[in-house]
């Protein structure tokens, strides 16, 4: 591995942000940034530039009109193709019969084909493939504001007690076993996504109504919380827990004053990542921290339910969908 000096640092910094470096190189980057103030500044400036790019470009969205036109065009195309296919199949059948049987049978086949076509023409092709139920399903997955507030307040309260430079040895498993046996060794499960971020605190906290398995990591001087809690009625906006759906709406964002939250759901649990970092940063870090936890929980939950959940790594679909639901409609 190359020695990490200021030159190499600057060369690799953008790839660090793109998560294209090995775990070891990530470490060297962070280590170098800790010791070198000028590189630390450059890191902040480049992150700033990246976020400005993302913000500025996010303003460009396809217009609603164009989206509607696109859908209409696809429907028309789908209807056209199915019509052509059926026609082809009927013709094929017709000629097969004609070759195999005498002319009388051929004429009968022709008659059948004509009747078949006539019936087909009358068949209505629905132009509304169940949009409303999908939107309802997604709305039912909305997490409650109460949960977001509780998660934010746990982050604030517990982070307040974290001393600078303190480190945690990991979760005490006796403590967490009572709360949720699947959260035993939670810090070890997250480790893959934490990519070497130092763990400062690991415990079970919260009130009697809402308890969390809580990990706090430090990242460039900022504290980041990962919280796991039960997906009960109080956690949902509607007050009732919907049966888990097809893995579409995984992530939901929220903002509680200075804090940004990103929440993922499994059938039985909610995983939240909270920090004071900018929205994009929190979202990205949340994806990285929560992914191994969600994967783990879905696996154990599916073992109990004998069901298989979709692969979580196709995550961007979820982000976009939830954003659109917040906008009040499904695109």
């Amino acid at each position, binding site marked *: 591995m190359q020695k990490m000096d200021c030159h190499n640092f*600057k*060369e690799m910094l*953008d*790839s660090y*942000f*793109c*998560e*294209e470096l090995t775990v070891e190189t990530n470490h060297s980057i962070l280590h170098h940034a800790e010791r070198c103030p000028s590189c630390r*500044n*450059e890191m*902040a*400036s*480049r992150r*700033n*530039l*990246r976020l*400005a*790019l*993302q*913000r*500025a*470009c*996010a303003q*460009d*969205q*396809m*217009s609603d009109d*164009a*989206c509607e*036109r*696109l*859908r209409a*065009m*696809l*429907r028309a*195309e*789908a*209807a056209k*193709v*199915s019509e052509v*296919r*059926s026609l082809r*199949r009927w013709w094929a059948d017709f000629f097969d019969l004609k070759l195999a049987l005498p002319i009388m049978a051929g004429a009968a086949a022709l008659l059948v084909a004509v009747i078949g076509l006539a*019936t*087909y023409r009358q*068949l209505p*092709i*629905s132009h509304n*493939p169940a949009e409303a139920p*999908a939107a309802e399903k997604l709305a039912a997955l909305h997490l409650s504001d109460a949960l977001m507030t509780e998660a934010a307040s746990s982050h604030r309260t517990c982070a307040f007690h974290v001393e600078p430079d303190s480190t945690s040895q990991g979760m005490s498993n006796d403590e967490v076993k009572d709360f949720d046996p699947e959260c035993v060794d939670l810090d070890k499960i997250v480790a893959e996504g934490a990519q070497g971020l130092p763990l400062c605190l690991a415990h079970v906290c919260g009130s009697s109504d809402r308890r969390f398995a809580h990990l706090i990591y430090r990242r460039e001087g900022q504290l980041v919380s990962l919280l796991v809690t039960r997906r009960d009625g109080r956690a949902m906006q509607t007050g009732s827990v919907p049966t888990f759906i097809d893995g*579409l709406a995984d992530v939901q964002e929220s903002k509680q004053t200075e804090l940004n939250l990103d929440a993922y759901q499994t059938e039985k649990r909610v995983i939240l990542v909270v920090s004071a970092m900018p929205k994009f940063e929190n979202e*990205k870090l949340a994806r990285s921290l929560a992914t191994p936890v969600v994967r783990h929980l879905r696996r154990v939950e599916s073992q109990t339910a004998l069901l298989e959940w979709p*692969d979580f790594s*196709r995550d*961007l*679909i979820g982000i*976009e*969908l939830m954003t*659109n639901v917040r906008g009040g409609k499904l*695109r």
Partner: protein
Amino acid sequence: MIEDSAQNQLQRLQAFETEALVFTSQLYRVALRLCRDKAKAEDLVQETYLQAWRSFHRFEQGTNLRAWLYKIMFNVYYSGQRRQKLQFVGTEEIIAETIAYDPPTPQQLTDEEVLAALERLPKDFQIPILLADVEELSYREIADAMEIPMGTVMSRLHRGRKLLRTELTGYARNAGYRISK
């Protein structure tokens, strides 16, 4: 049988819409940089989805749908623009030679300045930056989508980002002059 076929078609369309239409804005942003015109960009996205739908049966479930859509979009775009694509080949080397030094990144930047600086880059640099830094595709996905080698993606990103910072330093310097006057 007929009913089956129409029904199947609808189910396939629903699956396609659920999986693919979430990327419209992401595709549109890249289309906008390629076409530099809103109406043309919307047309490009439309055409991309049309082509994608027609070959959706060939798409391997479980592989990267987003990268596949981008790939179709580049194909659609470049098939109508073959001459322009060739024009870019020479410029890359020339530009790379003009930026021997790496300027520090300015700290104070408005979104507008950043966007304007991005717009000034040649498309060959703009698009990989957009894909990597804004849409957060991996370098491998970009190479697949643009059908260029991974090494080329990395060198274009490297040079493009440098160029972008040079542009921005220019802005910052100009802003400084204005203040001192």
